[in-house]
């Protein structure tokens, strides 16, 4: 796909400025997974849209970026890679600030795991950073993550009396028995990532609960779950613009974008191809907003999409969809975001406290996240029109799934069997799997063009004609390719099976060469059409703005 168009189109995605800054720290040297990972990533992911070197040559004419450069746009990381990287940053920070690692992690988390930012803030105003995580100034013994009682006390949770050493605190003056700590941490861990924000149980005390205390006090299972939340926080809260977990079902890999890359689509090693920005299935040439709106719309029996539109809104801070499950309009987004806002106007709750509750702001501010405008547009659009686009979007999706299954079957032994028939090594038949990879990608792109066109103004005939023309050309080429790959392959197999023995050697080879020629040609044609399609759709055309 044309890299140039991609850059122009997405360069307004925002936040690119600090890209270089972020990477100039050289952290990624530590974090990059080894090259094996990377290679297997793109090889396996072939089905999902990354073409390898040879393929790329064919489209060099339209692509001004070397294929090698494209592959370097991201690295895969396992959970262990992420953890190692996080531990390293934490250890360095702990040493630099002379605080125990648990506190270092709390500070880092406060600064979104940006060690440089923490360093600056800490050395310009240590008290403020401490205050933000609830940690008081260091005592005589420095910062203490947890301490045991030195005299008999009563536990304020279970009201039992305990001898010295039978209770502990979060470094503050409030001691609780071991059993109650276990229960306290268990309840918090069961509640999700909120456990990372846990404080001393005393309502007036802000002392933070850190890793050291959890490791000492929690049950094994809770300790492990806490550790998982810590690692997730590093990716999800920290540098989320640059690292993301693959949203593929059951996949535990993280993807880190490389310096300077404007990463948009990632074919993960698990074969799931996703959008790095919004986490949705890869949806070029439609934008994230279009894809998001379309997905919401489709989550229908009509009613469902209507339900989502009426009952959920996006947190103005982190954009997660939120369902209002109680009457109260004071919304608190769940951890780790915690943003407080008004359900009616989506303004910050801070502006609502005291006497200045004015949700007549509603009228002015609602447009951005509520989808109010979309809702009206959708009402205008006729159900027939929607159905037209939805059917095509869904059908290409089904065909894509089928092609993916066929590709899996080919890679899982089908190719070897085919190679047997022709009497050639399986490597000779890689053009078949490549064609399938092309088909899958093309189907995916095509299906999203339907979502794209749906949101275009039907009144603007000229532009619409142009889209539909590109779409038709690309679709035609792709259907031919799919038919050839599916039909002719099977026919050929029968043909060679029947006549291969009758005719002298060379018959099978000749037929195979013909088939290769045809399929490769169709692959090339299809690729060229889709390059044009994506370029055409993406070049300077504003899509719907929610």
């Amino acid at each position: 796909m044309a890299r140039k168009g991609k850059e122009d189109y997405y360069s307004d995605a925002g936040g690119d400025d600090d890209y270089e800054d972020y990477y100039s720290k050289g952290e990624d040297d530590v974090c990059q997974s080894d090259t094996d990972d990377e290679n297997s990533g793109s090889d396996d992911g072939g089905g999902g849209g990354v073409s390898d070197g040879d393929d790329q040559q064919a489209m060099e004419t339209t692509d001004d970026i070397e294929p090698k450069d494209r592959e370097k746009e991201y690295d895969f990381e396992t959970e262990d890679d992420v953890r190692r990287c996080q531990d390293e940053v934490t250890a360095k920070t702990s040493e630099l600030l002379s605080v125990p690692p648990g506190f270092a992690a709390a500070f880092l988390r406060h600064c979104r795991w940006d060690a440089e930012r923490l360093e600056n803030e800490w050395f310009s105003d240590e008290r403020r950073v401490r205050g933000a995580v609830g940690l008081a100034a260091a005592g005589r013994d420095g910062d203490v993550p947890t301490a045991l009682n030195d005299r008999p006390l009563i536990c304020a949770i279970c009201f039992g009396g305990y001898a010295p050493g039978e209770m502990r605190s979060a470094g503050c003056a409030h001691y609780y028995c071991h059993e109650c700590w276990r229960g306290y941490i268990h309840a918090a861990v069961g509640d999700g990532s909120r456990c990372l924000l846990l404080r001393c149980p005393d309502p007036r005390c802000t002392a933070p609960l850190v890793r050291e205390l959890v490791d000492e006090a929690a049950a094994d299972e809770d300790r492990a779950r806490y550790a998982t939340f810590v690692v997730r926080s590093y990716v999800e809260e920290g540098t989320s613009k640059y690292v993301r977990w693959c949203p593929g079902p059951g996949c535990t890999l993280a993807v880190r974008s490389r310096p300077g890359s404007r990463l948009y689509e990632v074919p993960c090693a698990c074969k799931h191809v996703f959008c790095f920005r919004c986490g949705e299935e890869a949806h070029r040439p439609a934008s994230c907003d279009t894809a998001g709106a379309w997905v919401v719309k489709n989550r229908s029996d009509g009613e469902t999409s209507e339900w989502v539109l009426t009952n959920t809104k996006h947190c103005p801070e982190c954009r997660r969809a939120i369902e209002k499950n109680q009457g109260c309009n004071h919304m608190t987004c769940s951890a780790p975001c915690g943003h407080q806002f008004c359900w009616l106007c989506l303004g910050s709750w801070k502006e609502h406290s005291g006497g200045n509750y004015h949700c007549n702001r509603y009228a002015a501010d609602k447009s951005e996240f509520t989808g109010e405008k979309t809702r009206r547009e959708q009402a205008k659009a006729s159900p027939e029109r929607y159905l037209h686009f939805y059917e095509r979007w869904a059908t290409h999706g089904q065909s894509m799934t089928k092609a993916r299954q066929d590709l899996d079957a080919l890679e899982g032994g089908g190719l070897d069997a085919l190679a047997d028939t022709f009497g050639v090594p399986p490597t000779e038949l890689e053009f078949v799997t490549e064609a399938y990879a092309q088909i899958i990608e093309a189907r995916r792109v095509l299906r999203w063009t339907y979502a794209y066109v749906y949101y275009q103004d039907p009144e603007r005939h000229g532009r619409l004609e142009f889209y539909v023309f590109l779409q038709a050309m690309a679709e035609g080429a792709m259907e031919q390719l799919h038919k050839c790959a599916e039909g002719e392959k099977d026919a050929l197999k029968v043909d060679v099976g029947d006549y291969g023995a009758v005719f002298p050697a060379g018959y099978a080879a000749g037929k195979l060469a013909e088939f290769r020629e045809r399929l490769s040609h169709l692959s090339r044609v299809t690729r060229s059409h889709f390059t044009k399609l994506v370029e055409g759709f993406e070049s300077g055309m504003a899509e719907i703005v929610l």
Partner: protein
Amino acid sequence: MANSNLPRRIIKETQRLLSEPAPGISASPSEENMRYFNVMILGPAQSPYEGGVFKLELFLPEEYPMAAPKVRFLTKIYHPNIDKLGRICLDILKDKWSPALQIRTVLLSVLPYCLLSPDYLIFSIQALLSAPNPDDPLSDNVAKHWKANEAEAVETAKEWTRLYASGA
């Protein structure tokens, strides 16, 4: 039976609630289930709920004190932070709960907060009654009313107190 292995904490809290009741509040456990409390609260003076006696139920879930007690008004009340079912919009009954809080703290702080007047800090239930806080509404309509015309809303609250909470 649920009462046989009641945690020491619940027993002690109950004993203390019975032996040193907080002013204006009575809480007594049900005979069948020691985790279920019948609560009565006097409407705080200088609030629209003055002169009213409000019944509530309080239930200590299995996870208590790691999870918050469940509290609900049984007496009908006109209040922006209390909905038709008597549920209360209060942070310490939700995400701000801490096991170091107690039934007593909840009743002493939730209610007064609820029942005093707007912009009162969230501390406990009696406070809730003293300070209706329309900025954190659970009941949209009541909150809107409170915003639009406080004097009228207060009158409605007094009216409801007379009608439903006059200690019949």
